[in-house]
């Protein structure tokens, strides 16, 4: 047998194996892609095409809650379906979000600024915040600048008032309470707390934990934590734990949270990444502050995914899902994510 014949035989055997692999792989792959929860928009489209509008709405709502997409398309699809189903209340509530997402995808800076302002105003028509302390207004402005800087928004953001900043942060996935109560915990917060988190890279990154005007976080990778007493507002502990580079950080943070007194308030902000060395033990300690595994990572619920933004304010011992928790992915399909914020604001005048 000549070398040429031997090579032909061996190549033919290999090629046949690869062809057989392809014949089995692609149908499986197509099925996986079809059933992947991240492809919820395509799934909703199929449901809509089959006339199952309510199911399509439910699928989109589930998907948006689990993936917090940074692209406008899923929100636009849901808005259209709300209109089709005649659910005007849901339609109107979602409209500012769609306007905001569409503004971020606009490439003309002037037009984008105008659209952002329109989105903020549309939101304010539905929900207007009460007056806030000047230091809180200042922090809201800084947060809004961080948020829109990801998309290269211009000076127009600086010219907006605190109400518009608040509106922009809310429609970008922010979670706020303006009555001084921390989420659904029922615990009244003695001071104004604002938390912003930006996971990811470059201008996406941010971490601020502003308590009564003082920022306890710094530009350092990891999970920033501030613990304070709910009665006296005294800060008990504040630190940053780099879960990306330091394998022991998760253990140290878990120990700190475990030792924290019951009922103490915890504020958390991820800068860059807070997931790589996340342990189950730490997740459980964070869940004890009322946080929830809200994100879907690798088809499983997770507190935080790779380079996700996560901002939260909770109370130790509170039931799960009762904390204020905002999060965003680093990226969804082709769209970059952005910093998210949450906060507890007391009506101006009650602030100390």
């Amino acid at each position, binding site marked *: 047998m000549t070398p040429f014949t031997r090579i032909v035989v061996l190549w033919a055997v290999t090629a046949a194996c690869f062809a057989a692999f392809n014949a089995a792989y692609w149908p499986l792959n197509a099925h996986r892609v079809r059933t992947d929860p991240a492809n919820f928009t395509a799934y909703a489209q199929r449901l809509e095409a089959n006339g199952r509008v309510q199911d399509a709405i439910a699928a989109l709502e589930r998907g948006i809650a689990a993936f917090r997409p940074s692209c406008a398309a899923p929100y636009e699809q849901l808005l259209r379906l709300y209109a089709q189903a005649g659910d005007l209340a849901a339609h109107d509530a979602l409209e500012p979000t769609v306007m905001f997402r569409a503004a971020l995808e606009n490439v003309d800076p002037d037009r984008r600024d105008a659209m952002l302002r329109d989105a903020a105003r549309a939101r304010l028509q539905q929900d207007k915040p009460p007056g806030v302390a000047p230091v809180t207004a200042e922090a809201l402005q800084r947060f809004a600048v961080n948020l829109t800087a990801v998309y290269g928004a211009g000076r127009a953001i600086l010219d907006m008032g605190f109400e518009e900043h608040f509106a922009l942060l809310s429609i970008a996935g922010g979670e706020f309470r303006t009555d001084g109560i921390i989420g659904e915990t029922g615990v009244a917060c003695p001071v104004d707390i604002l938390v912003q988190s930006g996971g990811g890279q470059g201008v996406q990154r941010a971490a601020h934990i502003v308590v009564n005007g003082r920022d306890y976080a710094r530009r350092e990778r990891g999970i920033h934590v501030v613990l304070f007493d709910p009665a006296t507002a005294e800060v008990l502990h504040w630190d940053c734990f780099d879960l990306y580079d330091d394998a022991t950080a998760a253990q140290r943070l878990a120990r700190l949270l475990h030792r924290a007194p019951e009922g103490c308030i915890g504020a958390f902000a991820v800068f860059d990444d807070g997931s790589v060395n996340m342990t189950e033990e730490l997740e459980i300690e964070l869940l004890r502050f009322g946080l929830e595994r809200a994100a879907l990572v690798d088809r*499983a619920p997770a507190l935080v995914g790779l380079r996700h933004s996560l901002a939260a304010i909770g109370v130790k011992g509170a039931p799960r899902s009762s904390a204020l928790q905002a999060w965003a992915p680093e990226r969804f399909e082709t769209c970059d994510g952005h910093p998210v914020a949450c906060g507890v604001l007391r009506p101006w005048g009650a602030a100390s």
Partner: protein
Amino acid sequence: MKQPWTLYLLVAAGAFLVTFVLVPAFRWLARRLDVVDRPSEARKVHRRVIPYLGGVPFYLAFLGTILFIEAFYPQYSQASFFPMCLVGTLIVLMGLYDDVANMSSSRKLLLELGLFILLYFWGGFRATEIAHPFGGTIHVGWLALILSPLWIAGVVNAVNFSDGLDGLAAGLVFVCAAAIFAIGFTRGQTTSCIMMAYLMGCTLAFLCYNFHPASIFMGDAGALFLGFVLGASTLIERQKGVAVVALAVPMVVLTVPILDTLLSFYRRLLRARQGQFFMPDRDHLHHRLLDLGLSQRQVVLSLYYLSACMGLLAFILSGVPGAYGFLILVLAAMAIAFCVVVLRFIEGFARNGGRAAPPESNADVE
């Protein structure tokens, strides 16, 4: 972080079984097609005709692993798996050609780099950031286009060069895979752990046939493919989100084959003036240990041991902050340099019949 233990066990057991069952079949095929290694060159250690094609079952086990994950554990499937399968197929075809008709090293290297550049653009196997010695990362930007394919090609050739003694390449890959698995496990890097479980399974099965005295060789098809899976897997985990590659850890794990490759590259550079850059030689680490009088089994076991020590070091390194890690790395480099000096001293001592070698006698080693 919760780890899919069952998946790792199934992948390792599946790869083991497929390889264990298919190796005798390919041994038979290699004999039928006369794809065998004849001990004709001086650098070859074995004295019998040994069939090649032992590496093809690795490739088939890999395809089987990908299908298994796609069918039963779709949540762990990655978009990069198919590019890996395609490029892996081309690597195997190239290796088979080399086993039958001896492809020149320069052509092989060019083809490898071409394939890995394809993987860079299509599969997203890129290292845009590398580990900073004192913690954190350094953004390398467009340099990633050069670094990433070179890294995979480096690992591929390191494994290929170490395939000079019975059970050496497969054993070193097993040890490296075990170390990377342990590190990936503590960091919750599922994809990396799956790939390492596969590598451990198939190399362990292959060692049943390939440990001294070997009844089959993996050939270039097997060595290139194993090196490719090992090299690409070190990049695969970090491609989620932004590609951040901490190459320091896999580099320490792979110290033995990489060091051998670098020394070989250095020797080839010295020979380049005579136009012999791509000519193989008999100066690899395992050859030199054999020349010291160690048996083949002793050489292989001592290199396993050395590799396991480096794997343990890498495991420790992965758990400490950057600056301390750098310190450990420096100490390890010093220890390796000391070992090289001792080895050369022993070589000189042995050459001079028990008398210490004069310093200038080392000049003619190459």
